[in-house]
């Protein structure tokens, strides 16, 4: 005979009550695990989608409006290029993809186009490391879902999607699709701009934006040719949606008080709404589980104590101390909690993996970390809900043993 035997045998003595209580915990935990699992992958999928849309935060000179930037494409106001370094060296999360730009008008074949100077990522990363930022300990990327796809080989054309390219020589240029079509320029051709020869390393695919009528060159070359010094017209940031929601714009505003920071609010708001709704749903379900499940368990435990008062009294008459009686009920609660938590995690994960793709349209994988979470919540609820009933049992008057019940 040991404590576990005593508790285990009693559990199965009142099977129907125990099963009802167990099912309540199991279904509650199953629901929350399934929602949390699907939500996690849905958020990641949405974030990935959003991140692929392009720049969503712009750092502009104070006097320039977003309207000016998009409608006129070009403006004369500038901000120091040093702002890029400040951003890179700051501890703001979510500014991994920075793209400083300087536009100057150029003429090709008698038509006017914009020559946009861009800074390859490799250069400001190297600068940052040299300036003491270490080896970029900050995680790069937005934590988008990895669906097992092969990483894309580095291609100059990724500029279209990522707004940033890794390397670009000082006399290399990328040509927008309209420029290429109008002027009959192909990859490998040479072009003279502002009196200097450039080789065309890529023709960018059509985007349907002003980028199609732009020519992209190295920022420092464009700065030198335009004679404007170390300045840029804007810094585009492909901010991670999660970080934008968490206040990235405020962070950049504080860091660069003399610049204007704007974000594509509508896009971010959509993401925030979706994420917020899922989060709220999961919190609501959790609250329901805690309240309804907890009340159910407390009720079950109270009636269990009431039914067993004679047995408890007998144990006390035989010499059981109050601490042992307390342990009998708390161990029972813990066993129910553990079983409910483990079962709920397994069932919830199966549901999420099976139904996630149909309901949320995203692939869902099991999340082992939710097992700890499920067991913790489940055992926590059952233990807390059983505290008062167990205390009542421990303080029961053993005299009840002698009275006819």
């Amino acid at each position, binding site marked *: *005979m*040991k404590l576990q*035997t*005593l508790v285990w*045998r*009693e559990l*199965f*003595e009142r099977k129907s009550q125990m099963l009802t209580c167990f099912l309540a915990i199991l279904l509650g935990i199953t629901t929350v695990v399934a929602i949390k699992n699907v939500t996690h992958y849905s958020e990641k999928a949405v974030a990935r989608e959003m991140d692929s849309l392009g720049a969503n935060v712009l750092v502009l000179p104070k006097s320039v409006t977003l309207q000016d930037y998009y409608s006129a494409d070009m403006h004369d106001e500038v901000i120091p290029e040093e702002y890029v370094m400040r951003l890179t060296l700051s501890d703001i999360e979510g500014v991994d993809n920075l793209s400083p730009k300087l536009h100057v008008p150029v003429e090709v074949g008698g038509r006017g186009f914009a020559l946009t100077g861009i800074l390859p990522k490799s250069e400001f990363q190297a600068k940052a490391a040299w300036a003491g930022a270490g080896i970029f300990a900050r995680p790069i990327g937005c934590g988008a879902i990895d669906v097992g796809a092969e990483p894309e080989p580095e291609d100059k054309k990724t500029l279209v999607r990522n707004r940033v390219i890794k390397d670009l020589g000082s006399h290399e240029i990328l040509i927008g699709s309209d420029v290429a079509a109008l002027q009959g320029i192909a990859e490998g051709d040479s072009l003279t701009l502002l009196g200097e020869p450039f080789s065309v390393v890529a023709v960018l695919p059509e985007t349907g934006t002003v980028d199609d009528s732009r020519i992209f060159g190295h920022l420092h070359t464009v700065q030198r040719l335009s004679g404007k010094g170390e300045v840029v017209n804007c810094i585009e940031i492909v901010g991670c949606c999660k970080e934008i929601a968490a206040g990235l714009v405020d962070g950049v505003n504080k860091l660069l008080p003399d610049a204007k920071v704007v974000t594509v609010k509508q896009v971010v708001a959509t993401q925030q709404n979706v994420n917020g709704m899922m989060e709220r749903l999961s919190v609501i379900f959790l609250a329901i589980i805690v309240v309804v499940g907890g009340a159910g368990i407390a009720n079950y435990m109270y009636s269990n104590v009431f039914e067993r008062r*004679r*047995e408890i*009294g*007998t*144990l*006390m*008459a*035989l*010499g*059981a*101390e*109050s*601490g*042992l009686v307390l342990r009998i009920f708390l161990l029972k609660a813990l066993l129910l909690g553990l079983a409910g938590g483990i079962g709920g995690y397994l069932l919830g994960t199966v549901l999420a993996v099976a139904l996630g793709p149909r309901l949320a349209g995203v692939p869902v994988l099991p999340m082992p970390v939710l097992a700890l979470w499920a067991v913790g919540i489940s055992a926590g609820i059952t233990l807390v809900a059983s505290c008062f009933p167990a205390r009542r049992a421990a303080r029961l008057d*053993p*005299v009840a*043993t*002698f009275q*006819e019940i």
Partner: protein
Amino acid sequence: MLRMEDVCKSYRHRGQVVQALDGATVAIARGDFVSVVGPSGSGKSTLLLMLGGMLSPSSGRVLLEGESIYDLPSDGRARLRKKNVGFVFQTFNLVPYLTALENVQVPMYLAGVDEKSQRERAAALLQRVGLGDRLDHKPAELSVGQQQRVALARMLANDPALILADEPTGNLDPETADQIIGFFEQFNDEGRTIVMVTHDPRAAVRARRTLRLSDGRIVDETRGGRALHVA
């Protein structure tokens, strides 16, 4: 061994004060076998509960081996019961979901005896009360007489010096009751002190002496047929 000194117990019931015990003084020597008789509500069970450290008196003292048991905290009294006292109940109070063997193991588990020794001693005790072939039966699978014998085996588990029995034959037919009282006589012969509350005159007369209670007072004491056995 056991002394009650001017013990009173009163409690309120529906606004009225009920005097369950009124100035009870009694001394019970080691090896004594005392039966307590009296009409319902005369305070018999209250007296037994007080001797077992389960119900504190309103005034007066109860001493076990010279120690005032109600000066101990409730867990201290539980330890005292575990070590010295064996209870027998009218309705047996066996744990329904445990087998006969496991029921007898419970007091030993509470006393911290290892599992192997628990099983060996529990089997020997059940053998002694004639239930060697019912070790794995649950209470519901046993007759009332057999259940009371399991309860006797459980009571003996920690080898108590004092046995407190509340109407141990109250639910039994005369033949089985006779058998159970026979066991009590054996336990008394082993030197154990027994206090037995009973309504059954045939059981009461087999004790060494009989205390008669009425309205919470000990009104009479008669000697029975048994000689005092001192171990």
